[in-house]
């Protein structure tokens, strides 16, 4: 208990003093996970919507695969990404192992099925006649998709939050493909693991609190957008 109090005090110290290292780590976490979520958003929503709106043979199998992907273990992603991009691997020429770029790729792979699965369900959940209605009003196909996405705004923002939550809190892939390099690829989760290993529990707790605060702030903003009244 004393340790937790110490950790909370330490967290405030680190935040109030604008500790440059912690600030850098926090900013990097936000940047990496934010970019990864954005990438997953485009891939996830577009494929999710496409699968939801089309009928094809084996659709259920594809949906099952996407839903399984929602539980993709980060370490597994980390392992495969590492093997693909290490120097002597098939994508070794990119030279991106142990860089923030590699972390973005791994996190995007983790977040994409989450966003995809939820957007798929969101679009499927819309009343089936809505599509016909929009089309009969003279909308083009693209416009119809856009209206559908707008209709599903609430669950889609939930998808973003789930995707972001999945990657900002993830440590297995980040430590494997990023390497936890000081001032370069060290993010809040990997730093927490390292400080725990070093026995600096107060710093580890402080970093955890900062991570929670960061996640809270991001979700606060997203929730504001989600809960806003329908414009027009």
């Amino acid at each position, binding site marked *: 208990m004393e340790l937790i109090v110490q950790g909370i005090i330490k967290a405030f110290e680190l935040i109030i003093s604008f500790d440059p290292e912690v600030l850098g780590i926090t900013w990097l976490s936000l940047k990496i996970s934010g970019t990864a979520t954005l990438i997953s958003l485009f891939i996830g929503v577009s494929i999710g919507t496409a699968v939801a709106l089309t009928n094809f043979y084996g659709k259920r199998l594809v949906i099952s695969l996407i839903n399984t992907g929602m539980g993709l273990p980060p370490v597994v992603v980390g392992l495969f990404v590492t093997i693909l991009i290490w*120097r002597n691997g098939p994508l070794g020429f990119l030279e991106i192992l142990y860089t923030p770029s590699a972390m*973005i790729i791994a996190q995007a792979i983790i977040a994409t099925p989450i966003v995809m699965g939820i957007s798929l369900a969101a679009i499927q959940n819309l009343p089936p006649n809505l599509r016909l209605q929009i089309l009969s009003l003279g909308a083009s196909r693209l416009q119809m998709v*856009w209206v559908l996405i707008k209709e599903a705004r609430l669950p889609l923002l939930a998808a973003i939050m789930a995707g972001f939550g999945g990657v900002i809190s993830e440590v297995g892939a980040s430590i494997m493909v990023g390497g936890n390099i000081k001032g370069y690829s060290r993010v809040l989760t990997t730093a927490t693991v*390292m400080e725990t*290993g*070093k026995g600096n529990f107060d710093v580890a707790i402080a970093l955890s609190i900062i991570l929670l605060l960061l996640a809270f702030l991001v979700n606060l903003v997203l929730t504001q957008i989600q809960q806003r009244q329908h414009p027009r």
Partner: protein
Amino acid sequence: MKIFRNSKVIITLMIAALLFAFGTANVFAGMAAPKQKNIILATTTSTQDTGLLDVLIPIFEKETVYFVKTIAVGSGQAMAMGQKGEADVLLVHSPDAEKKFIADGFGVNRMLVMHNDFIIVGPGDDPAKIKGVKSSAEALKLVAKAEGLFLSRGDNSGTHAKEKILWKKADINPVGQKWYQETGLGMGQTLNVAAEKKGYTLADRGTYLSLKKNLGLDVLVEGDSDLLNIYHVIEVNSAKWPKVNVPGAKAFAAFMVSKKTQNIIKTFGMDKFGSPLFFPDAGKKVEDLGK
């Protein structure tokens, strides 16, 4: 209305494209960096957990053009990375495995950097009564006899390799015994587990000292010549893996054995722990250590 909707779609798509471009630019930023500037240093957890590298690496980076990517894993994994050409230079402490690594042609220029010692730590009440026992193998025999809980790293690290040698010397095979548990974690975390479960473990003194304040584990066996913990720097052989950054590895190895670095190692930890964590040994012979 229709035009308005259309423009909205277009604007959204444009923003999407921009954001995506930003994302990809970020993703491939690593490509733009001059490739031979990076050195991948694969090392043991103890050099990171003690904070030694946090002191040394910035100095090295300031003095040279290189950027060091420190990957702190066990010595076993560090050498596995070297074997695959996924590291440029190693700082490890597993002498037998290192010799094999060199003999197999994976590494060159193995140089002695420093040493400290291993210690057997355990709970203060010491159920197996090993406190003060001179020989580490004898102490392990007592632990086995009393079936005292022993936490092993179990991760092929240098410490784990040393522990296996000691068990062999004690003529005991602890693997599979109920009182013998493998954590598969780094030294710091294994010490925490040992503290939490009131078990014995083998640790390097550096990591123990830097964690001591939170542990509540006592040093029970120390000073045995079997307990020497010796660190070498090894350059990965570029003949096997052409992508290895040879000049970078050479520069780092030279830096580790330079006079200036050795002086830093000599005093590192004095202010915090009252005693140094490592003893610099560059240029010495392994046989002369600990005398």
